[in-house]
């Protein structure tokens, strides 16, 4: 709760700092405020006593863990933003505060205990993102991204709300615990569960799949990710995706769990389509940013594993996978921002010969690509390992076989970057890497390798 209040107040404070022309103080104040919020969050570890605020919110360890990742990732992305927004327009403070408002929505999304709070959290996050996608007002692609995201997002929210309404009609409550109780008592006493409930579950699954960009509801993702400014894309594909999965998992793991046999095949089909659509399309991309967009779709598929096979390890799996994916994506997007700032291009060819001129950047990008591909000794491998072993323990052998095939496909397109950097020569000037980029790259690489070789470092008690 303190973290949520801190971030909300911080957003207003940053807005007013911009009003009084204190543009130099914006980034330090934002980072300091987020550090305070992170401290409050971590301080709340293991002190959960039950849902608070008339059972609206539930700050359990699950919420603490996911708030922790999202706040940390936001801090890393904001560290990269030094001097970035100034190039777009004069309204720098507004951008920071919109990101912070979005983060406030995300904190609500990961700690809701009532479907109204889920809706409010998703809306606070989404409305901020619609604006952020379109902050390059003169750029056609950015406009397209904002409009597309807004229309698709509004549509998916409609699905979600319709689902909530139907479930309320069947269970007479918005409260997650009460809905679960309703299901359990009905199943135990052999009473039929209203067909409204089944329809509601499917509609909510559709709405959430839209938000996390899972196929066949992923069509907005590549255009929005490509059109938005790269840093905003980094925010969307790491923080927002993590929050979406946390919300998805919380809903299905705590609330709809008794109906697992009903919705599991639905999610299973979504998972398989997502894996294939993401990976196969990513193979054909010539643009690094678009490749990252499609790869984020395929990673959504891997994260859906946790929801298909809800075991004791499901939350832990999503937690580790989200950290691994966020760290690797932040490195990749940092490289992309540097490349766009220096060469103005984001094709794979622009990475040619980077290994000789910028060994550190090339090394970090290599680690990121290996982690995204799931090669051992990186965090990505541990994430995939937990997901797959989880699925195997619930007898989804075929799913794991398909996922391994997809992991092999993904190696092709991730390795294109590595091949371009080390094995293709090109005349190029050395990229200038500012200190803040070096810090972010170093932190992310250390996190990736540390989790890769010592996963027990993360607490397994979510």
């Amino acid at each position, binding site marked *: 709760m303190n973290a949520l209040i801190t971030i909300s107040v911080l957003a*207003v404070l940053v*807005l*007013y700092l911009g*009003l009084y022309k204190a543009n130099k103080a914006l980034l330090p104040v934002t980072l300091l405020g987020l550090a305070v919020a992170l401290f409050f969050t971590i301080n709340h570890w293991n002190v959960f006593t039950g849902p608070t605020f008339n059972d609206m919110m539930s700050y359990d360890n699950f919420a603490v863990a996911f708030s922790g990742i999202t706040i940390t990732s936001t801090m890393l992305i904001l560290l990269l933003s030094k001097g970035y927004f100034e190039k777009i327009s004069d309204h720098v403070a507004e951008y920071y505060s919109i990101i912070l408002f979005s983060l406030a929505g995300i904190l609500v999304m990961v700690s809701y205990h009532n479907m109204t709070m889920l809706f409010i959290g998703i809306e606070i996050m989404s409305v901020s993102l619609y604006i952020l996608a379109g902050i390059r007002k003169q750029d056609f692609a950015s406009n397209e991204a904002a409009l597309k995201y807004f229309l698709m997002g509004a549509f998916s929210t409609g699905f979600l709300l319709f689902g909530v309404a139907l479930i309320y009609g069947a269970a007479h409550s918005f409260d997650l615990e009460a809905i679960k109780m309703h299901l359990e008592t009905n199943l135990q006493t052999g009473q039929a569960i209203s067909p409204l409930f089944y329809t509601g579950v499917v509609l909510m699954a559709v709405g959430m799949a839209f938000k996390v960009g899972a196929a066949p509801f992923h069509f907005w993702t590549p255009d929005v990710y490509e059109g938005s400014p790269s840093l905003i894309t980094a925010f969307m594909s790491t923080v927002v995706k993590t929050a979406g999965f946390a919300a998805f998992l919380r809903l299905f793991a705590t609330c709809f769990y008794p109906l697992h046999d009903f919705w599991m095949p639905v999610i299973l089909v979504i998972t398989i389509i997502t894996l294939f659509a993401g990976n196969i399309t990513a193979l054909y991309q010539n643009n690094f940013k678009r490749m990252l967009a499609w790869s984020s779709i395929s990673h959504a598929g891997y994260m859906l594993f946790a929801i298909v096979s809800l075991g004791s390890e499901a939350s832990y799996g999503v937690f580790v996978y989200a950290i691994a994916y966020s760290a690797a994506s932040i490195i990749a997007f940092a490289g992309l921002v540097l490349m766009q700032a220096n060469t103005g291009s984001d094709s794979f060819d622009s990475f040619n010969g980077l290994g000789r001129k910028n060994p550190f950047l090339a090394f970090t990008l290599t680690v990121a690509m290996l982690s995204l591909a799931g090669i051992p000794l990186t965090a990505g491998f541990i994430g995939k390992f937990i997901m797959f072993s989880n699925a195997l323990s619930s007898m989804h052998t075929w799913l794991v076989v398909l996922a391994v095939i997809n992991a092999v496909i993904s190696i092709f397109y991730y390795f294109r970057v590595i091949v371009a950097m080390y094995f293709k020569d090109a005349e190029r000037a050395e990229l200038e890497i500012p200190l803040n980029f070096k810090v972010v790259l170093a932190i992310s690489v250390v996190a990736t390798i540390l989790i890769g070789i010592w996963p027990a470092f993360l607490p397994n008690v979510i």
Partner: protein
Amino acid sequence: MEAQSTAINYLPIIFQILVALGFAVGTMAVTHMIGPKRKTSDKLTPFEAGIKVVGNARQPFSVKYFLVAILFVLFDVEVIFMYPWAVNFRELGSTGMIEMFIFMGTLLLGFFYIIKKKALDWD
């Protein structure tokens, strides 16, 4: 007091809707049927307070109208939240008072922001 409401409880609402629709449709139909019809070109032009109609209504106009309109809606709608609070003022007590002050304070911050940002300056 009934805990559960059934479909029969909504019957008055259906009557209300039927009467409202029936009145609108009925009066329009009846005036068309019994009214005298003299169709001259002057009679058929849109009436705009006696001023001659100029040009097409569908043309771009300044985005400032939208800005002012959306800000008006924003601050106008917030007032609605005061009503339930005022009705339950005694029950909510000092906690409700503080919460309302925080809410109004946030609104005031936003209002101050748009004034400082010169969103309401027309030029």
